[in-house]
């Protein structure tokens, strides 16, 4: 973990240096001095930044939880039931490559401009990865392990608890790591419409007001939220997946 923190810190330092150099070269308002941007953080609480972050995080967590629950159930069903697999497999593979952002107008029309449509879109981005990961993990479980625990007299619930769930957790965490970046990008896009809260709104609002300092501040905060989520997944992996 220490090594990862060092890598992130180094990356952040390099990016800021590049940013500063570009600022020095071009001397334009569009690329402000990073030091000025960081100094403006003293307004962090007055601007309601915490509330913006909380709203964005709530939308991401809600989307992730729904995607995890639904995705795990659908993926598991597809793995254990040939009938369910036959029904759902074409549907999943047809809809998986469709860019979900293209569905934003449809989702907003059906579910309104509020938080629900944003959560649904995030769910749709993450769920396919979860379905495929869970299905493949369950199909790949060593049959001998299942025979072994069944011979002990294990019930289906005990097989799920002792074998299936621990087996699929590493795959789910990897999927989350892959999809969380996409979810953040989509969140930024979604929060441009029908809301006055959230990091996406904050950045786009500052942009329309030509307040580049706030805009960059919003970008830094949103990036930090993304990095924090990555760290959270790493910590979860270290705490849960101890056997690797």
């Amino acid at each position, binding site marked *: 973990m220490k090594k990862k923190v060092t890598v992130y810190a180094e990356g952040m330092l390099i990016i800021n240096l590049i940013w500063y150099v570009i600022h020095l070269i071009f001397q334009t308002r569009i690329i402000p001095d990073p030091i000025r941007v960081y100094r403006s953080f003293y307004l962090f609480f007055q601007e309601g930044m915490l509330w913006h972050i909380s709203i964005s995080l709530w939308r991401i967590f809600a989307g992730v939880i729904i995607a995890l629950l639904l995705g795990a159930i659908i993926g598991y069903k597809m793995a254990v039931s040939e009938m369910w697999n036959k029904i759902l497999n074409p549907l999943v593979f047809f809809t998986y490559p469709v860019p979900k952002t293209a569905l934003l107008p449809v989702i907003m029309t059906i579910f309104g401009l509020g938080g629900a449509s944003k959560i649904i879109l995030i769910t749709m981005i993450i769920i396919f990865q979860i379905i495929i990961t869970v299905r493949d993990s369950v199909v790949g479980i*060593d049959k*001998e*392990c*299942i*025979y*072994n*625990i*069944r*011979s*002990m*007299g*294990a*019930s289906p619930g*005990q097989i799920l608890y*002792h*074998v299936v769930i*621990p*087996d699929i957790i590493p795959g789910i965490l990897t999927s989350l790591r892959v999809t969380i970046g996409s979810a953040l990008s989509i969140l930024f896009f979604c929060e441009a419409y029908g809301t006055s809260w959230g990091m996406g709104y904050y950045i786009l609002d500052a942009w329309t007001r030509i307040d580049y300092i706030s805009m960059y501040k919003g970008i830094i905060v949103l990036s930090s939220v993304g990095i924090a989520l990555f760290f959270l997944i790493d910590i979860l992996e270290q705490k849960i*997946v*101890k*056997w*690797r």
Partner: protein
Amino acid sequence: MLEMTEVSVYYESNGEKHHAAGPITLQVANSETCAIIGPSGCGKTSLLRVMAGVQNNFTGRVRIDGNDLKPALHRIAYIPQNSGLLGWKTIRNNCLLPVKIRKLPLDREVYLRLREITRRMEIEDILDRYPSQVSGGQLQRAAVARSLMIKPDLLLMDEPFSALDTLTREYAQNMLRCVLRDFKATAVLVTHSIEEAVFLADRVIVLSASPGKIIADITTLSSEYEDRSAVRYTKLAAIIRQLIKEEWEGYGEEKSNSVC
């Protein structure tokens, strides 16, 4: 006592039903160790799974002590080729798993038994490690330790030491032989090794090529000799090898060589 009556095992492939083994009628007395040897594909593992209560495609009857076999009712310990230990549980938690599955209390008696068995199997130092952190020999010994935790009515082993090198295998075999004797376990062992069968088992059942049927049922009297180089032991292994050669003649050189 394990009783198998007219058991035939089937498997499905490309929608067709194939006869894997049987009909087989076999009895294994309490505290007896029985080894099954046969050519590849003769249905040894399928037969073992029938005894474990996890194979559905079979006809005939399997009973333990007069009752129809049910994993929830009988204490069955099945050790597959890959040990069957769960990679996400420590060796300790793997050993305690059968106790948890049967919802037995994790009391002092259980922990004393765990200590005794793991000491006997010489794995008491690796209890807090994960299966990926121990050697192949330790893994198989841990699998045996786990199987003994619930005082099994029937211990089933599918080529438990096939992946080990010669020295480790002999060490593990010696240990298993002592443990089986001391714990008075009723055991069925599937193996490709005639020497292993003769050394570990009281009886050796020889199966024909697929579909596997019993062609010989040989009493080894293995308890009468301790040394692997005992004349009777090597003679018996040679007799079984000759019997197998004669029986499987024409089955294919490649396949008959699979028993060595």
